[in-house]
């Protein structure tokens, strides 16, 4: 199946799991995507392999960062009618709280959707959405 066809069928069914499976890093992280109406949530299930500091223990900053980037990417693939994968131009992460050894959720806000560039804000949280553990701010170059 061509990637563009996969995109079309995932968007039509609002089920992005075949898309997650097609991207090795996303399936390595075991990402899940929950779409309810207009609400998009990306979930990073806890795994002990995601730990960066075994003493605390805390999630690895790179795992949280990679998760935020994936969340932004899948949000764009769901929301914007592209035929190819958007490319990350830059990514800024603020780490606000220690990532606890539990599931992490991410919600995405499209700050601006231009013709070529999309600007996103991504919030990762665990206990409650009003207590984010990390904020991502990024620009993606949109494909054709």
């Amino acid at each position: 199946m061509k990637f563009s066809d996969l995109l079309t069928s995932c968007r039509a069914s609002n089920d992005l799991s075949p898309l997650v499976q097609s991207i090795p890093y996303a399936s390595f992280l075991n990402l899940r995507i929950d779409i309810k109406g207009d609400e998009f949530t990306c979930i990073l299930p806890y795994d002990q392999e995601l730990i960066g500091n075994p003493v605390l223990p805390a999630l690895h900053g790179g795992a949280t960062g990679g998760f935020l980037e994936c969340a932004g990417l899948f949000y764009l693939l769901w929301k914007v009618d592209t035929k190819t994968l958007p490319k990350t131009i830059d990514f800024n992460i603020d780490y606000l709280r220690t990532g606890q050894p539990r599931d992490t959720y991410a919600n995405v806000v499209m700050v601006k959707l231009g013709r070529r560039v999309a600007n996103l804000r991504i919030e990762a949280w665990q206990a409650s959405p009003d207590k984010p553990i990390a904020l991502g701010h990024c620009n993606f170059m949109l494909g054709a």
Partner: protein
Amino acid sequence: MTETMSPEEEVDQRWQKFAHGFPYSRELGLLPQSVRPDGCVLKLDYQEKLVGDPNTRVLHGGIITALLDAAFGFSIFVKLPELRPMATLDLRIDYLKPATPDKAVLGCAVCCKLTPELAFVRGCAYHESPDDPIATAVGIYMFTDGSSVLRNEDVTR
């Protein structure tokens, strides 16, 4: 560091073991290439499971984030007289070009400033030379143990 050991031996004996203490770094197969007070280089071998775009087989950007975050941490550890727990406060990455499939990616980092509470780091990810980077990055790390174990003379404010 003991004087009888070459820098390479020090990397092998101390940091290789150390690197395996971090589950996520171990899972990605990050290995210290050189760990020196003036800068660290970590190596990430190409792995199919870390691909972000199945069409081009280019590594996912999140992997570059993980590589640089780990390299940044190492560059701070080697500058400290003893290990201190710390957390990433802020990390910014500019993606300049895609990583080439099948090639190992190196992540280099230099800690350019240490204060009792914070560490400021710069670095980049590359294949052959840091002059031709895949991504450039800056980060700020905060020590999470509260009080400083650094002696005053070790820190230039």
